[in-house]
């Protein structure tokens, strides 16, 4: 079924048009990569989807419900969760507590953390591979561990759609391989994913489909193989000269 639909979504900040008339949809169970050079509007799109900003115009529909302009906590309760480019851990809390926060608030509010929350949190930490550091303060983590913690926290809210923001940026090929395995494991849990990937290392390997943005507009959409050969995409990343070379 169609999980997410964007209809003619536009976002302007004063004079700057960050996103212009974006249209696409995502089916449940897909892994879609969102690619494009810096400044293309990918993170802005995430901010719209997660509720941090309101679209200037257009509509966003998630699982049949209109979510345009809803606040972040409401969108989270409906089932969309995200990670951050800069991870944003709760630095003075342990990794376990970071994830427990996600368990506790993802779907509602009650007075004290429950046993199940702790168990679920431990399980998720195990899945992303940092359960050995459950009791360490998040502020002391390495970059790769932080990314995984961010992912764990987002998963703790039991999302249907997960927005991953540059989760493999700066990773070595070995680390990318591990990231691929992790993403597939997340898909096996039944989570649909939209992945921002500027570096084109992760998304090429896991995505069913790529959507390419440039200067706030969608310039291409299709399977990874096709997109990588798409002239507009090459031009966006590498510039005019390279486009001519390919002719």
């Amino acid at each position, binding site marked *: 079924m169609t999980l997410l639909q964007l209809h003619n979504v536009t976002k302007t900040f004063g004079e700057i048009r960050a996103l212009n008339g974006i249209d696409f949809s995502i089916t449940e169970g897909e892994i879609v990569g969102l690619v494009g050079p810096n400044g293309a509007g990918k993170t802005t799109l995430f901010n719209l989807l*997660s*509720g*941090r900003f309101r679209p200037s115009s257009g509509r966003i529909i998630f699982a049949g419900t209109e979510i345009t302009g809803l*606040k*972040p*906590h409401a969108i*989270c*309760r409906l089932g969309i*969760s*995200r990670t*951050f480019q800069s991870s*944003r*851990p*709760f*630095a*003075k*809390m*342990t990794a*376990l*507590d970071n994830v*427990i*926060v*996600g368990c*506790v*608030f*993802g*779907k509602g*509010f*009650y*007075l*004290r*953390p429950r046993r199940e*929350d*702790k168990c679920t949190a*431990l399980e998720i930490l195990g899945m992303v591979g940092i359960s050995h550091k*459950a*009791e360490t*303060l998040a502020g002391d983590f390495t970059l790769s561990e932080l990314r995984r913690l961010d992912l764990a*926290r*987002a998963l*703790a*809210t039991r999302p249907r759609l997960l927005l991953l923001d540059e989760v493999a940026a700066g990773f070595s090929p070995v680390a990318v391989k591990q990231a691929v395995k992790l993403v597939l494991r997340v898909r096996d849990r039944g989570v649909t994913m939209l992945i921002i990937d500027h570096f084109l290392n992760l998304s090429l390997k896991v995505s069913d489909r790529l959507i390419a943005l440039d200067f706030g507009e969608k310039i291409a959409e299709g399977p990874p193989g096709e997109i990588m050969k798409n002239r507009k995409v090459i031009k966006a990343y590498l510039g005019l000269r390279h486009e001519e070379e390919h002719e």
Partner: protein
Amino acid sequence: MQNGEEPNKIISIEKNSKPRVKRRRVDEGGLVLLFFVLLLLPVLVRHDDYILQVFTHALLLATLALAWNILGISGSISLGHAAFFGAGAYTSALLSLESGISPWLTIPLGGLLSSGLGLVMGLICMRLRGAYFALATLAFVEIPRVITDNWDGLTRGSLGLVGLPGLPSLHLGSWYIHIGSSVAASYYLVLIHALFLSGLVGFIFHSNLGIALQAIREEEIAAQSIGIRIERFRLFSLLVSAFFAGVSGACYAHMVRYIGPELVYGIHFSAAPMIFALCGGRLTIVGPALAALILYPVDQFIFHPLLPAGHEFLYGAVLVLVVIYLPRGFWGSIRKAP
């Protein structure tokens, strides 16, 4: 988050021994020792009224600091908590003076009114973050102060209110304890209040409310994206904080039996809780209370005799030192030290 048993954890995985258990026992031992000293203080000082009164006042400031820190958990810094302290003081004073209602009732009513004032402040200021929120609280306290100062008909204006009823008496079966007239009894009342509030703050820290507030303090945007309603939690913590600040103010009114707008809405009661909480440690449960119990007596016993005018510089000096050299506060540093 720290308390007596489970440091650095919301839920501990194992309660067995850890490498740091030895240090924890020292901290906790210290707290237990302090508890007994406080419990037996009247006996220890051989009922020296002056010393007891200083420590009673220190405990009152401790309750104000604990109340302040309920808001402080969320990362918000209030520079105008005297607004709530004073509102509680005046409400309780006026109700008990004019209507003869027992302070047992007017003190919580004072807390309620302060909470209402907190609601007003919250509705206006909750959108503000960090520095701007602090500035708003700095300005906000002027409003109840000036209103109280000018509304002569109700509050006697800048003359203040005198002859307030003392702390209420307690009937326990055939026992009749005049708390107001007994220095030791007043001391114990405030001590119980402080212990109760410490327990409450500890409960909040470990509850989902406390978790949410800490997440909000750490990373507001991430907290929002995992389902935490920022404004609602901050507002709630402000309401609770204002309530207990008001209760402290009301207790103060009935202890000293005189209040005036410059006094209860003054900078002393805005600065004190903030300074104690920061010096003790905003991330700890009892840090603010400990700082009050140390700094206020030091001020009164050591510096006041030396410098009858200007002895409160101590608070400013300690704050500056803590902000620069010991941002976790002294108790926070002890708790967190490896």
